[in-house]
């Protein structure tokens, strides 16, 4: 596939394995899943970004987009977002909050911290698949990521 050539790497930060599975399924459906890194909590996400711990030996470069859940064990999504946006090396990474929360305060807090998009996971699977597909295509394919991002 033509698009495969310039598919960006996606960092999915999600603690619920079912959500991970469904998200990956949705991405697979549109062949967007082969460059997805999964971090199951905020700490792991930061470890990936800083190439520490479990990700010490990962190939260099920032992800083209980060799909971030808000409710996470250890370090929650807003905290991760805050850390990324206050770090010179990381602040350019596009971050999409992908959450169940429709709460206005979460939305306001996220935008205040400089999130690039805020998406509420639809209950309906069709809509969910569509949302993931569109997100994947937009951020991993259409959008020109900042320099230093990993692209295949």
């Amino acid at each position, binding site marked *: 596939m033509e698009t495969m050539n310039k598919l960006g790497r996606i960092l999915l930060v999600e603690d619920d394995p079912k959500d991970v599975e469904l998200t990956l399924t949705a991405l697979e459906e549109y062949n967007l899943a082969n460059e997805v890194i999964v971090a199951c909590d905020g700490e792991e996400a930061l470890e990936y970004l800083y190439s520490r711990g479990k990700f010490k030996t990962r190939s260099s470069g920032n992800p083209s987009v980060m799909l971030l859940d808000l409710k996470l064990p250890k370090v929650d999504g807003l905290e991760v977002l805050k850390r990324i946006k206050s770090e010179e090396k990381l602040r350019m990474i596009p971050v999409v909050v992908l959450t*169940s929360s429709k709460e*206005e305060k979460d939305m306001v807090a996220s935008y205040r911290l400089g999130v690039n998009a805020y998406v509420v*996971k639809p*209950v309906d*699977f069709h809509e969910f698949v569509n949302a993931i597909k569109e997100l994947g295509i937009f951020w991993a394919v259409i959008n020109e990521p900042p320099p230093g991002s990993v692209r295949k």
Partner: protein
Amino acid sequence: MARSKLQLRIAESPVQRYGLAVASVTIAIPIGLFLEYHEFHRGSIPLFLFAVALSAWYGGAGPAMLATVLSTLSFDYYFAPPVHTLNFTLADVPAFFFLLTFGALITGFSAVRRRVEAELLQARDRLEIEVAERTQQASLLNLTHDTIFVRDMSDSIRYWNRGAEELYGWTPEQAIGKSSHELLRTVFPSPLDDIQTEFLRTGRWEGELTHMKADGTEVVVSSRWSLRRDEQEQPIAILETNNDITVRKRREQEIQSLNQELAKRSMELEAINKELEAFAYSVSHDLRAPLRHMAGYTELLQKKASSDLDEKSKHYLLMMLDSAKRMGNLIDDLLAFSRIGRAETQKTLFSLSQLVREAVTEVRQDAEGRNIAWKIGALPDFYGDRSMLRLVLVNLISNAIKFTRTRTQTEIEIGCADGNGADLVVFVRDNGVGFDMKYVNKLFGVFQRLHDSSAFEGTGIGLATVQRIIHRHEGKVWAEGVIDCGATFYFSAPKPRGHVWKP
């Protein structure tokens, strides 16, 4: 004159007074001569002194002096040898001396006496006036409802008005002479010594005291003290005016305790609200996730196994998906409903007709292909939270569309009645399936539905949301309906201030 009883009768005119002197001496002469004739020598001197005394008593100093001079001359002429001449011999010197000295003494005493008497009279007059004034003042003080008493510097009660008698229950006779603080068992707001120091310095004091009445009940008074000083600036008395504020005080305490209670309640409420918020948040996040998973996996199963499944199994999967979707809607609606209760209203003045147009455009998408006659009347400006009001209109209009689904020709009317003056009344009317007025009270309850969900889908939260929003705008909601003849939903809200609107 009323006071002549005390006043010595002094002849009024000088003629009378000096005439009296002349007359008394003139009368003394023949009496003296008569006594002389009967060999009673020297009897004339006391007679002349008596004449002088008489003149002094009734005529004053001047006539007394005249009487003395006349007496001396008369004595010389009539009684001192050589008789019938004004010559006098050395032998008469003691008699003259005696006469003149005593005459002068009597005159002097008389003058002093008269002056003293005059001063006395003056003082008495002043006193009488003062007594009259005081009596009047005291009776005036008795007229007031205030409690007034006067105490001296040793706290002994000197005056006790009727107000004091009425409030405390002691008569003036019982109270006067007693120590006020002991009688009333005064409780002071601060140490008495401090109060006294301040009071003596400024001459005034105000504060709240607790007193005990004769019947033993306590009374709280608002007390004002004024200090009275004499001419030497020495404090002599204290005027104490008290107002019974027991009832007011009790009310204040009641209000205070109610306020405390209220503050406690609102704190509790706030805590509950916070909990509720946390609950809503967790519902929003945690309940939705498993639901999404159920729907997701069911759909994956449907996709993967669809060719192996019989019609019944496919139907089951379909029902599972339908239920998941319905629950998702329920959660969304419930959250929206709870958000309305928590969110701040942001009120602005906006055009209601503009908002109705927006709402109609939004809900029209659900009614594509249907034949709907819209009738939108003139609408005023509305003061309220625009996005909340939009939700109200969307709910009411989409209900109207929903419940007219079975009609071949749908009519929906949106309009405004002027209401009862202070309020605007907006209505949404349809010619749909209507409802039984018997159940009108259930319409606006959460999860209350008057139709089965197979005929008309819905979560039963829409009208509850409408009601909650309108209540937050200090308005009312109500409805009228007839089965199979349509329904009208009304809501009212206060008119924007200073805004005149005629339909």
